[in-house]
């Protein structure tokens, strides 16, 4: 059986499982929409400026995808490793890369769904202006830019037991969100923070999507960084997957 067909099989049944309990994805759909409503919409200086509003919505979208990726991948995998179905799946002839890609497709699709309320709120309640085709390009860019977060979530999920994973994910997403300029725009950062920020995948994802939607210059560090994070984290996930033997007790 080819990697592609096994990837699709695992993604399909993962989506079926999710669709049977649809309320489970409410967190990743509602949380970023609420953040946009509370933090961006009331600040009229941002919301009434088309350029700032668009960037704020993009930041929130990257935030939504990042939170969704870290939590659903990290917690989902850590939880599954503590259940006996995952060890059984490992006895089937499916390579690690098929399992990893299936996770990315199925859970990644859910993160894209969580962007719809953000785009809707942004279009209705702020003065953000983007051509529809640019929105589609932006969604494509977000899908690409979210790869490091999905892989980071998976690495945490395979490396840690569930309770430890929750704590690590909370710290990680907060640091990445602030450090990457997703809450406060990087224009307000002091120089030293801005310098560090440019190496974070969250900042790179934000700048990459802004470039895709609004045009302008793309710093080499931005796309090189995204490619680099993706390669390093993919290698780490595959290593951790191979090494994993389920939950270990001492």
């Amino acid at each position, binding site marked *: 059986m080819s990697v592609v067909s096994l990837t699709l099989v695992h993604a399909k049944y993962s989506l079926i499982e999710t669709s049977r309990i649809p309320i489970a994805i409410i967190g990743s759909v509602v949380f970023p929409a609420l953040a946009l409503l509370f933090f961006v919409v009331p600040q009229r200086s941002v919301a009434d400026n088309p350029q700032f509003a668009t960037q704020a919505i993009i930041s929130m979208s990257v935030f939504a995808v990042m939170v969704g990726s870290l939590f659903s991948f990290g917690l989902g995998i850590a939880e599954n490793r503590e259940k006996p179905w995952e*060890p059984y799946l490992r*006895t089937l002839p499916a390579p690690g890369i098929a399992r990893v890609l299936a996770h990315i497709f199925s859970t990644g699709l859910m993160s894209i769904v969580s962007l719809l309320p953000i785009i809707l709120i942004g279009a209705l309640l702020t003065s953000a202006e983007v051509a529809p085709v640019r929105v589609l390009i932006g969604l494509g860019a977000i899908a690409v830019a979210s790869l490091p977060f999905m892989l980071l979530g998976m690495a945490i999920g395979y490396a840690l037991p569930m309770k430890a994973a929750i704590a690590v994910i909370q710290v990680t997403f907060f640091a990445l969100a602030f450090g990457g300029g997703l809450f406060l725009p990087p224009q307000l950062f002091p120089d030293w923070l801005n310098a560090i920020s440019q190496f974070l995948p969250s900042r790179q994802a934000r700048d990459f999507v802004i470039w895709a939607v609004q045009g302008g210059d793309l710093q080499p560090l931005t796309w090189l960084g995204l490619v680099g994070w993706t390669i390093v984290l993919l290698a780490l996930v595959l290593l951790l997957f191979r090494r994993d033997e*389920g939950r270990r007790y001492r």
Partner: protein
Amino acid sequence: MTTLASLDRVTRTFGSVTAVDDVSLDITEGEMLGLLGPNGAGKTTVISLLQGRRRPTTGTVTLFGGSPADVASRRYLGSTPQETALPDTLRVGEVIDFVGAHFAERRATAGLAEEFGVAEFLKRQVGSLSGGQKRRLSVALAFVGNPRLVLLDEPTTGLDVDARHALWAVLRRQHELGTTVVVTSHYLEEIEALAQRVVVMAGGRVVADDSLTGILGRAGQRIVRLRSDEPDRVAALPGVTRREADSYVVHDSDAFLIELVRSGIGFHDLTVRGASLEEAFLSLTESAALEGAR
């Protein structure tokens, strides 16, 4: 005879616990091998090593000529999840199709479900099945890929007598059709019903590896319990392999009683019973230790 899988001087430790201790074992094509032992003997660890789920601490595990950790080695391997492992929200038919999608020559869902007695539940979500129904589905999953080697870890746990006998019949039929089967159990009865060759494990070691008749002969001991003023003389009688307080382990209780009466040793409160599997294991372990010391 082709060797499908083997363990070569395999040891696996978990922290300070040695679950499998220097085990060597060959699984030959066409056999029905029973892996018998009490809880904690290392049976499940042996299975998980063969499945590639765990790696040996030392030694080599081979599956179809390769490492079980490689995907290609597992193409002709069938295994069973614990019945609590099945994903509750998927339907029975979906679980069979999901697992079947991993194999090149998979069996049709309907025929497999019919054979293992889950045909009427195909449209139901797994979470709505009873424990016994889940168990049958779990065992069916091991056969969906037309495997050459099937590893069954305590396949009939939680089944009532009828369901257990029905499942044994299915397993024997699959074996007659050419599938090599390894089945673990802590029930001697189950191993008797299924296995031709029996490997007994205790404390992580293989303490016996023999045909079913050979094992039954060695395990078929009697416990004679009696009170006597001269217990040391009783223990010294021919045929006594072990003594524990007022209990004497013997192979042939009839011959022992004749010797006891002939010896003229006074005794009272006599009872004779068959050795439990635990006691049989214990004597096998002790004789293994004795042979090791020689």
